[in-house]
């Protein structure tokens, strides 16, 4: 695949050429950074560590309308999802997460909403030169410059971005840019390699996941779950901010005669997630829920799709209000094995 160079000064033009597509890019707001749709003419340079909320909503919105209907009618309206979309500057871990989640949405039943959006999107990643405190992607099979899930990878070389197409979609996007880009050479490739190595070296918090997927089922009754979950508040921070968490709930909302069926993110950390109509709850306390969260990511998903459903983005560790730290948790698991 081809590698091209884009002078940073030409970034606005690069973004400008995407007219007609929905463009998501990291933008600053009072929360910090988050992915939002770019307004016409805007082209902020992606200069950030990572967003608080992952860009998973581009393919799997927190709330999405599945269909609309009228009370007492039989016809339904389905949403139109065929708008071309570009995500600019997402981190490799988040792109990897999309690839991991895609396995689930294409598994026994094809999820039309996710797949349609996936088909229409071009993911333009930005390699991490300066990973964050809780980044641990190499521990779970990722890398600061992983291309898994991406269509195009950008590497910040200082004055220029190095653009490497990963897929045909990426290739096509590069073509669209025409003479905005110039060929990259061997120097740039070397520079990239150096940056990636440096970045990997900056990752301090690592964890050895060797044997964890196989070992977890044996730790079902281990006291570590009680210890880890004792301080858990049962909120949805870890799951909602996780790029691979993909649980949803479906509701019908009625306003007068107009109604819609929508699905929204759900969290296995909520009590009512597994609450039965009878009042029985198979995961009655935070202990069972915490255990499930770790098992799902590090064991069940591996069983099913041969990949750990954690990309090491560190968001849950960063933002857990009570310092439930997935790195530490996996370390404890490892110790208990």
């Amino acid at each position, binding site marked *: 695949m081809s590698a091209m160079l884009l002078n940073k000064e030409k970034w606005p033009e690069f973004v400008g050429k995407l007219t007609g597509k929905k463009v998501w890019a990291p933008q600053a707001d009072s929360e910090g950074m988050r992915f939002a749709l770019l307004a016409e003419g805007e082209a902020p340079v992606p200069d950030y560590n990572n967003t608080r909320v992952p860009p998973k909503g581009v393919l799997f919105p927190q709330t999405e309308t599945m269909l609309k209907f009228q009370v007492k009618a039989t016809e339904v309206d389905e949403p139109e999802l065929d708008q071309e979309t570009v995500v600019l500057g997402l981190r490799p871990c988040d792109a990897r997460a999309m690839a991991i989640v895609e396995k689930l949405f294409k598994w026994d039943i094809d999820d039309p909403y996710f797949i349609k959006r996936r088909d229409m999107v071009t993911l333009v990643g930005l390699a991490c030169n300066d990973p964050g405190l809780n980044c641990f992607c190499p521990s779970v099979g990722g890398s600061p410059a992983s291309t898994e899930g991406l269509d195009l990878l950008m590497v910040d070389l200082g004055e220029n971005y190095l653009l490497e197409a990963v897929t045909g979609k990426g290739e096509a996007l590069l073509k669209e840019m025409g003479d905005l880009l110039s060929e990259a050479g061997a120097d740039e490739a070397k520079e990239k390699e150096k940056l990636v190595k440096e970045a990997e070296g900056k990752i301090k918090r690592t964890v050895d996941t060797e044997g964890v997927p196989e070992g977890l089922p044996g730790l079902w009754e281990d006291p570590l779950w009680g210890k880890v979950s004792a301080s858990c508040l049962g909120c949805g921070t870890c799951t909602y901010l996780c790029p691979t968490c993909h649980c949803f709930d479906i509701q019908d909302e009625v*306003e007068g005669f107009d109604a819609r069926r*929508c699905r929204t993110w759900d969290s296995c950390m909520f009590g009512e997630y597994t609450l039965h109509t009878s009042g029985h709850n198979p995961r009655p306390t935070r202990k069972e829920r915490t255990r499930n969260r770790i098992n799902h990511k590090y064991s069940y998903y591996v069983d099913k799709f041969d990949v750990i459903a954690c990309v090491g983005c560190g968001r849950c560790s960063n933002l857990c209000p009570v310092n439930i730290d997935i790195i530490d948790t996996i370390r404890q698991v490892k110790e208990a094995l």
Partner: protein
Amino acid sequence: MSAEFNPNIVAFLCNWCSYAGADLAGTSRVNYPSNIQIIRVMCSGRVNPLYVMNALQQGADGVLVSGCHPGDCHYMEGNFFARRRLGMLKDLMEFVGVDPKRFHMSWVSASEGHKWKEVVEKTVEDAKEAGPFEGFRRRQIDW
């Protein structure tokens, strides 16, 4: 636009004073704006303050809660609770940017058909001034 704007107002009236007062306004053939729709509750104390929020969310441009004058509550104290709760709600709503003109509370006794008319007129006039409530209305546009 604002001249033609017809605000949609939901009113919660206690059965014994204000609802009876509104009935008296009817019996006395007092004319007032038709923007107001009344939901009857037994006591103004029954009005969960979140009804006000809910009404705005579901499409009201203004909300009115009316009960017996202090000391006249059929249930002795319900209107005192309503006053405290709704007074606090009003402060809260104002703080989060809901125009205070959108929410009123009044004391209207069973004999105050004319006061009822005045209260309705004031509520409607204020809601008109505040304009259509777009705020956090549960709109369908982002569906």
